[in-house]
C-alpha cells in the first residue's frame, strides 16, 4: 500500500521569502504576474515527465513552497528549450526561473542524490573551471561511472563507433590561459558572496 501522505500545508511550513529570493535569483520579477494559465506546461516538451508542471512550480514558488520546489524533479527535467519563455503571455522568463531553482537547489544541496542531471552539471562545472573547456568524452564517461555504471556495457558499441570516426577524442581539451580564467571566475565568485 502506498504511504498515506499528509496533503495539508500549514503556513509555518512555508517560506514567505522564497518568492523574493527566486525573483532576485532569476531576474524575473514578472514571476509575480503569473496568471496560472498553463501555457508553459502545455508548451513544455518535458512536462509530461515532471512531478509538478511548470505552472505549478511558479504557483508554489510564489506561495513559498520551498521544500517541494527544490526537491522536485521538474527543475532538472527542464532542457532549456525556452518554449515556455517564448509563449508566456505575461513574459515570465520561466527557463531562467528554472535555472535559478537549479542553482538554488544545488547551493542548498537538496536535489535527489545520484540524480544524473545535477551530477552532470557539477562535472561540467568542475571541468570547465579547471581547464576552460569541456571534453565531452571524459565528462560522459564520468557521468556514467557516477550515476549509471550498469548502463556502460549497453553504450560501449556507440562509444566504439564514435571513437573510430574521430568523434570521441580522448585528448583532454583546455585553454592556454587557465590560471587567468580561474582568477576571473574567482573574482566573480567573491563578488557574488559579498553581494
Amino acid at each position, binding site marked *: 500500500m502506498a504511504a498515506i501522505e499528509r496533503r495539508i500545508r500549514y503556513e509555518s511550513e512555508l517560506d514567505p521569502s522564497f518568492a523574493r529570493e527566486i525573483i532576485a535569483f532569476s*531576474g524575473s520579477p514578472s514571476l509575480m504576474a503569473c496568471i496560472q494559465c498553463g501555457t508553459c506546461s502545455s508548451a513544455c*516538451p*518535458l512536462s509530461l*515527465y515532471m512531478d509538478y508542471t511548470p505552472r505549478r512550480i511558479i504557483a508554489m514558488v510564489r506561495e513559498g513552497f520551498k521544500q517541494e520546489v527544490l526537491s522536485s524533479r521538474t527543475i532538472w*527535467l527542464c*532542457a*532549456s*528549450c*525556452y*518554449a515556455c*519563455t*517564448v509563449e508566456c503571455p505575461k513574459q515570465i*522568463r520561466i*527557463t531562467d526561473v528554472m*535555472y*535559478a531553482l*537549479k*542553482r538554488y537547489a*544545488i547551493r542548498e544541496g537538496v536535489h535527489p542524490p545520484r540524480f*544524473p*542531471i*545535477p*551530477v*552532470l*552539471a557539477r562535472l*561540467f*562545472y568542475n571541468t*570547465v573551471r579547471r581547464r*576552460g*573547456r569541456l*571534453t*565531452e*568524452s571524459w565528462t*560522459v564517461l564520468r*557521468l556514467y561511472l557516477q*550515476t549509471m555504471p550498469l548502463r556502460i556495457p549497453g553504450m560501449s*558499441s*556507440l562509444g566504439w*563507433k*564514435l571513437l573510430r*570516426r*574521430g*568523434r*570521441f*577524442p580522448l585528448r583532454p*581539451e583546455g*585553454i*592556454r*590561459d587557465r590560471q*587567468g*580564467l580561474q*582568477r*576571473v*571566475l574567482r*573574482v*566573480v*565568485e567573491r*563578488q*557574488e558572496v559579498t*553581494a
Partner: protein
Amino acid sequence: MSYLYFPGCSLKGTGRAYEESLLAVFRALGIPLTELADWNCCGATAYMSIDEHQAFALAARNLALAESQGSPADGAVQLIAPCSACYLVLLKAQQCLAADIALCQEITIALKEEGHCYRGRVRIRHPLDVLVHDVGLSEIARHVRQPLRGLKIACYYGCQIVRPFALFDRPHDPSTMDDLVRILGAEPVSWPLKTHCCGGSLTGTIPEVGWRLNYLLLREAQRRGAHLIVTVCPLCQFNLEAYQDQIRQRYPDLAPMPVLYFTQLIGMAMGLPPRELGLQRLLIPVDGLMAALSKEGAHARA
C-alpha cells in the same frame, strides 16, 4: 567581410564534422573564418545551472577576446557561433550584461583582472544567419554544382537558435533553412517539429526520456517522407543520430535516418569532396543517397 569563429567544445569533439564542413563551405565561398584564439567554454546550460554569474563571465571572456582579436569593419566584430547552445549563451550573456548594470560591472571588474576588456561590441551570429542573410541565397546558388534533386529533407532547427532570441527567424515556424535547402535543389518537407526540443543533455542523463523525444522527431520526419534530417546544432545532430540503435530497440518501426549538418548538405551540393565535409564521420552513412544523387544529377545535366 571577415568573421571570427567560436567553435565551442562540441565542434572539437562529437561535432567535428560540423567544424570541417563549415570551414570547407566558407572556404569555397571565399569567406575567411578566423578561429578565436584561446576561446573557452561558452558557459552553457549545465554551467549556468551551477552559477549564473560565472557562466556570464565565461561568455564575456570570449566576447572580450573577440573584441580584441577582431577587426570591427562596420562597428562590430562578427562572431560566428555554430553551436546553438553557444550561440544562445553568448547572446544571453550579452543581453543580460546590457540590461543589468551591476552585473555588468561585476563581470567587467573580474575580466579586467586579467586585462580583458568587454565593451559589448560583438555581434554574435549563427552561420545559418550569415549564409542566408550576409552571403545570400543567390550567391550560394551560384556555387551549386550538384543540385540535390529528388532529396526530401526535414529541416530541424532545434530550440535555441530561434528561442528566445528570434533574431533572424520566427521562433515557431522558422524558414531560413528551408529556403536554403530549396536553393540547393532539394525539397524541404513540411513538418511541425522544426523547433521541438531534442532533449539536450537528457539523452545522457535520463536516456528513456531523451530517446523518446528523439524517437518522436525521427518518426515524424520519416512519416513525412524525409530522406534525411538536417540540423544546425552539434547536440541536436548527435542526439538524433547517435541513439538510433537504442531507440530502434524500443520502437522497431524506425528505419535508419541520416542526420546531417546543414553545412554538410551545402558542401554536397557545391560538389565538395566528402572527406572535407566529414561525411565519413556519420554513423548513418549517406553513400547510397549520394550515389543516387550523382546519377540523378548526371541525368539532369544530360
